[in-house]
């Protein structure tokens, strides 16, 4: 394995800036790793080595010419396949979009291009980001590099596995109920869901518009900070994007401190009932925080008990409407039934064949939740719960600067374990969903391996709206202490994928 791919994004950027290594070398090293482990891990739905190398060459040429370049210029990256790209197909993990090439770049993709980052390809996801394991991808699941028989988390299992198997130093994810943080926790990587609106959603194929947020996937907190600083910012194409700047995440990560901060231990998400190894690592993390001068206070968020219920009404409701445009008329798959079918029949046949089971399940749920006679009982009630959850957070943040919980109840589970039981699958997101309902930022940081299965465990930090920087400040500090204790990085515990 090339030493280059084991380096952090921050280290690679520095080496390239000093001229000690070229972008072509860095990019090629990652392409080599993709060629080596790509088939086994199945992180990518599409790879674009030629265009990535072309960008790398361009960066090297401009650097050689003495031009001043953006911070992450020349650093390769992978993009979740629910973001539109003009030079690669965008499928959102669905048959209904197979082969579709968007005529426009998502705003985040434009920012990556402006940053001169070589894009290695598009990463796998559960169909339309509906799932926690990538098992609902129409193109087959991605594998967890720690154990190829296990899930890499979802929906962003492509991005988490690509980063944890060193195929890319960074990746873009999207988080609607935990799709960045849960994959981060189960692959020993760092994932952030920024404040709702911090990153433009323009070009992100919507799952649930009021919950979706794009964020960074990385192997450590500082790398994630670098990426968030590149992709954040107001976008006139997205009415919900924030107009104010949230400051520098890199500066916050470099500041890295736990001292004097109050950490709110959420009573409802304290880990009771979670896998023992998850509880053990979480307890240790709390001790480290305390030892480093942080203060632990307990906060009560009683409405969290209804978060999953509310989430699985609001999300399907919005999704049922967002997915209505997939009708075969203007783009994507078209299925024409026998005979001389009307447009209604063509639409129905296309959606019947084009959508997978979880997508259909949620469209039906959402259509029902919005229907006359059900609206108040379901969608309306869920919105009230959402308000109560926001209130719970307000009260909690009156007592604490940061809230903490385990990111997920378990470590990575085996393929097939939960795919037939939607409710069991939905429970993976019990700790991550409240942040999406409230819009607040959250981050998952690895805190070691569970005793019983030697698989990664993550801690989740939550901060008040617009205070993403706090996540990076405490996340980097905890990470630093843990790496000191371990004597190496979390990701270095991962078994070497010497496949092929």
């Amino acid at each position: 394995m090339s030493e280059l791919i084991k380096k952090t994004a921050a280290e690679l950027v520095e080496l390239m800036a000093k001229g000690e290594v070229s972008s072509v070398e860095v990019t090629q090293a990652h392409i080599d790793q993709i060629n080596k482990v790509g088939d086994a891990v199945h992180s990518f739905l599409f790879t674009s080595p030629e265009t990535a190398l072309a960008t790398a060459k361009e960066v090297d040429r401009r650097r050689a010419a003495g031009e001043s370049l953006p911070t992450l210029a020349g650093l390769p990256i992978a993009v979740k396949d629910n973001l539109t790209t003009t030079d690669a197909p965008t499928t959102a993990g669905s048959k209904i979009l197979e082969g579709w090439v968007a005529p426009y770049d998502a705003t985040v993709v434009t920012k990556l291009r402006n940053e001169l980052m070589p894009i290695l390809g598009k990463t796998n996801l559960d169909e339309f980001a509906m799932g926690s394991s990538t098992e609902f991808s129409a193109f087959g699941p991605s594998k967890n590099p720690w154990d190829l028989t296990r899930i890499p988390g979802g929906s962003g299992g492509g991005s988490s596995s690509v980063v944890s198997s060193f195929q890319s130093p960074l990746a873009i994810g999207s988080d609607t109920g935990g799709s960045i943080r849960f994959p981060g926790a189960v692959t020993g990587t760092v994932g952030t869901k920024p404040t709702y609106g911090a990153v433009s959603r323009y070009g992100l194929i919507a799952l649930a518009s009021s919950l979706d947020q794009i964020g960074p996937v990385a192997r450590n907190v500082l790398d994630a900070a670098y990426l968030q600083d590149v992709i954040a910012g107001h976008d006139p194409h997205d009415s919900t994007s924030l107009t104010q700047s949230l400051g520098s995440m890199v500066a916050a990560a470099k500041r890295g401190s736990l001292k004097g901060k109050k950490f709110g231990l959420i009573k409802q998400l304290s880990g009771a009932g979670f896998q023992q190894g998850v509880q053990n690592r979480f307890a240790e993390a709390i001790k480290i925080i305390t030892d480093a001068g942080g203060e632990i206070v307990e906060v009560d968020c009683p409405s969290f008990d209804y978060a999953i219920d509310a989430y699985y009404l609001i999300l399907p409701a919005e999704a049922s409407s967002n997915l209505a445009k997939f009708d075969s008329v203007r783009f994507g798959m078209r299925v024409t039934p026998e005979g001389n079918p009307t447009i209604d029949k063509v639409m129905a046949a296309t959606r019947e064949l084009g959508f997978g089971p979880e997508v259909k399940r949620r469209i039906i749920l959402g259509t029902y939740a919005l229907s006359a006679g059900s609206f108040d009982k379901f969608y309306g009630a869920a919105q009230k719960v959402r308000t109560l959850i926001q209130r719970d957070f307000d009260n909690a943040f009156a007592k604490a600067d940061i809230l903490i919980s385990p990111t997920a109840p378990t470590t990575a589970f085996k393929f097939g374990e939960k795919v037939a039981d939607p409710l069991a699958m939905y429970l993976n997101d019990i700790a991550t969903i409240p942040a999406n309902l409230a819009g607040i930022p959250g981050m998952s940081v690895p805190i070691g391996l569970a005793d019983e299965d030697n698989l990664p465990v993550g801690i989740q930090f939550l901060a008040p709206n617009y205070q993403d920087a706090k996540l990076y400040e405490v996340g980097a500090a905890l990470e630093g202490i843990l790496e000191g204790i371990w004597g190496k990085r979390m990701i270095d515990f991962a078994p070497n994928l010497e496949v092929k």
Partner: protein
Amino acid sequence: MAKANLMDYEKALELFEVVIGLEVHIELNTKTKMFCGCRNDFGDEPNTNVCPVCIGLPGSLPVVNKKAVESSISIGLALGCKIEANGGFSRKNYFYPDLAKNYQTSQFKDPIAYDGALEVEVPSGNKFTVQIERAHMEEDAGKLTHIGGATGRIQGAEYSLVDYNRAGVPLVEIVTRPIIGAGSEAPELAAAYVRLIREIAKALNVSEARMERGNVRCDANVSLRPIGQEKLGTRTETKNVNSLRSIERAVRYEIQRQAQILADGGSIIQETRHWHEDKGSTSSGRPKSDADDYRYFPEPDLVPVQPSTELIEKLRSELPENPADRRKRLAGEWGFAEMEFRDVVNAGLLDFIEEAVAEGAKPQAARKWYSGEIARIANSEDKDVAEMNITPKQVAELATLVESGKINDRIARDVLSAVLAGEGNPGEIVTSRNLEVVSDDGALIAAIDEALAKQPDVLEKIREGKLQAAGAVIGAVMQAMKGQADAARVRELVLERASRA
């Protein structure tokens, strides 16, 4: 399609009370569409004014057109409405291929304007107050063209084409409360109301407001209830009635059709109906129930619409005079007799005359051309005046040519026909056809002397003081001049020559 049995109109009104409700869509004349930067111009080559947003590509997001919101507020204020300080958009979900996202971004619970009222005058001079329930913003759908069928309708078509240039065009929909008590004048009230809405939109300069182009579209709800009954009857909604005359006719038709069904013991089906201009009747569309489930929910891709008090008050201060005041002012400025003015209003000629006057015509002359000629010709051709191929500027030019004595009235009518036939501007036509009156007295005198010589008895009578006898000579002279003479001048000269000879 068998033509329905219609009850005699007077009889229908003896038996039933008429309730109407009007939904008027106004297409705003903003430069760009409601939620994207595409040109708001759907007359272009199909599917050229489109982008990922208005054709609903995956990942695209809407952004509200600020100007459209301001125009909508202005409309609301002109309708006497309250303005919603904390409103927003909702999604109206239904599948249809002209609807790119398969939901329409519209307003549901909190329309931009609500609770207004308009005083509407009908041709008899009676005035009615129409309550406005709401005016809300929404986007238009694309335009479907059905190919292969006999009627151009979807039934029987082989395939359909869709043009998304119109998708996302900003609309304001104005909805009245049920209008009760107009009695036999309900059809006229419906037309007068839409005319007033058009005038308001034009005065605000928020829409081209041309019905024949679909800038203003009206859906007319009609229901009947037996006189004395409290409960409203079942209504029908006649869609897209696109001229003022048609609105009046469609409402009248529905009153007569429904009355006959009810009198025969039948019941009205709640449905949409299509108006057929050629047949003068409506036909059944799709059933429509109050339970149509559009699964409205707040549009999560947009932020609330929260116009500031400052903005609302600024727009209020910029409102043009309201149509009633405008009419009062124009009546004063033009000096028409009361009946003349009312006829002008009822014929929908106010705007045209005002424009012609602005272009230099004398008010009475403009009135005469529009009421006497253009409206009459339009009527005989079953058209609206707006559809006639003549601009107010051309009318003013015509009136000025007459005023200056360059042509006389009879010639002017020929010139008008030529303008309507597309031959050009009046001045050009007069020149090219050499129609200018003969103002050379020498030529006229020669013709007069010749005519007098041919009719010695007439000369005698004139000399005896029977001046009306001059008519025969004037006629002969005009004929000799091929009509291109000023008849008044000819008369003067005839009398002068007769007294001299």
